[in-house]
């Protein structure tokens, strides 16, 4: 056999072998309970799991489509966690208008408190003197 033909075969077989992705291939043979739990908490891993998603679900249950909700979290700094809290709230509270109180440059956007019908506060101090709509899972939802 010509050397070029041998190299072609070797390269062809090499491509097939290199394409094998072992981790998913073993999935049918293992107990996937741990993997399910780990992937379920993956978006909210760290201090956010499991209370933050539960809090957002509760806020959703106590508000209706079209309501506007300002959001406060314990960090109140964009890269320290606020961006995550805001994005996640936007997903869970779809249909409502979620208003950030912090911008990507860490600037406070307090005008949004005035625009919002509700303020959702998670692990932070809620505004005083406002009627509490819901309290639980480490957070408070107050009406403005």
């Amino acid at each position, binding site marked *: *056999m*010509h050397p*070029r*033909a041998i*190299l*072609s*075969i070797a*390269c*062809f077989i*090499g*491509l*097939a072998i*290199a*394409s*094998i*992705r072992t*981790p*998913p*291939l*073993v*999935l*049918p043979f293992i107990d*996937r309970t741990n*993997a*399910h*739990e780990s*992937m*379920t908490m*993956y*978006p909210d891993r760290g201090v956010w799991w499991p209370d933050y998603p539960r809090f957002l679900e509760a806020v959703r249950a106590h508000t209706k*489509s079209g309501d506007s909700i300002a959001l406060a979290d314990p960090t109140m700094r964009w890269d320290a966690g606020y*961006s995550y809290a*805001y*994005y*996640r709230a*936007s*997903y869970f509270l*779809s*249909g409502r*208008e*979620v*208003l*950030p109180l912090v911008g990507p440059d860490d600037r406070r956007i307090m005008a949004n408190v005035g625009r919002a019908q509700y303020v959702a506060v998670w692990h932070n101090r809620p505004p005083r003197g406002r009627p509490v709509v819901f309290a639980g899972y480490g957070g408070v939802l107050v009406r403005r």
Partner: protein
Amino acid sequence: MALVLAALFTTLVLGIPAALAIDRECRGGALVGLSFLYGSGLLYGALLTLSLLHITWSAITTTVAALAVAAGLAFVARRKSLEATGTAGRAWSPAALPIDLLTAYTLFSYALYATLARVWEWDFWAIWGLKARVFVEASGIDWRFLRSPFNEFCHPDYPLLLPLNYAYTALIGGGWDDRWLGLFGVAYGLALLLIVRSLASREMPPVAAAVLTFAATAFALSHYVGLAEAPMIAFGSAGVLFIRRAVMFDERAAMRHGAVLLGLAGSTKNEGLALIVAVGAAMLLVDRSHWRRLLRLWPAVAIVAPWTIIRIALNLHTDIVRGGAFARAVIRLHEGISLLQRLIAQLPDSWMWILMLAALVIASHRVRAAERFVFSVVAIQLFFYVGAYLVTPHDLEWHIETSWPRLTRQIAVPLLFSVTVLLARTFAGEETLAHAEAGQDLH
């Protein structure tokens, strides 16, 4: 899960008239794969049109709209006699069966992975899934949401094909549920693998076609579950592979498939828009005398036009070209070597890329020249990616780390296909040569 499967099946059925309208002789795996991809595009078109006409989305309005278009296409398929794509070779053989079973097992394992839990990827719930969920709540595209300065994080300029497909599932399911949406990636991956298997069997023996399809699972089954990578890989790869056939074998039906699929790639991700340009440029590079053939890409332009116009009208900017892009590019050009080093360091599937490059060296010049089109598309698309890194306003390290592994996988299937054809032809050619030389020695 049943509802998502029902939505995927409906998508497939809706797409059959479209596949047959484009190519009446389309059959087997290619028909199934193309029908799903076209059905997905058809639903995107239906939901976008309803929103533009201010018609409220519901399971009934969206299905009726999609059925109306599908019925029209079925009428076209019956009436028009457009010539078909090239005849399929022998697709199956007993020797190929074990390899095809291995591919099926890989797909099954991937399906288990993609549905381990609710879709978990950040970009799903911050971009693709978020938009779908918001639109379902609004019973239409929520333009106010897209225009809000507070929602720039969800990239409002990104094309909406995938979110609208997710939205359709929620509409027929009666509400939003992200538990089984990972199955979309499985469906797009399967569609592409069926197309690859069918196209490969036209150019190589069944065993080689089966091995190529198995190797393609590394790229077609995207591990970025819930993101637009899976449809982008499926539409883009299938589009390039059909245009390749059109360029190499002058098949008009393949050109139609390719142009429509590229248009759908451009309706899935911004990289799809770049891919249309890359394909056009590569067609010119391969044969400048056939520039008129470029006009046959018009369906791609027509499909991406509505969203492009909407983007411009609503002033939805792409973040990477934010102010000062030229200045950033000039500065980063001076760091060219370090940029290249970062790209090499972050390259995923490195063994696959090394072997694909090795195949280019191993192949004889004559067979390599035949695959110039695909190599040009890949090179031009890579050039666009590097251009995006040069102008990005984001931290370069972060941008490369979070996007390069995804981007390189978008263009890998056509390259893998061409490389495999090269290896098969080189092997066949060298063997023929060796036999001829042996014959001469005997005489």
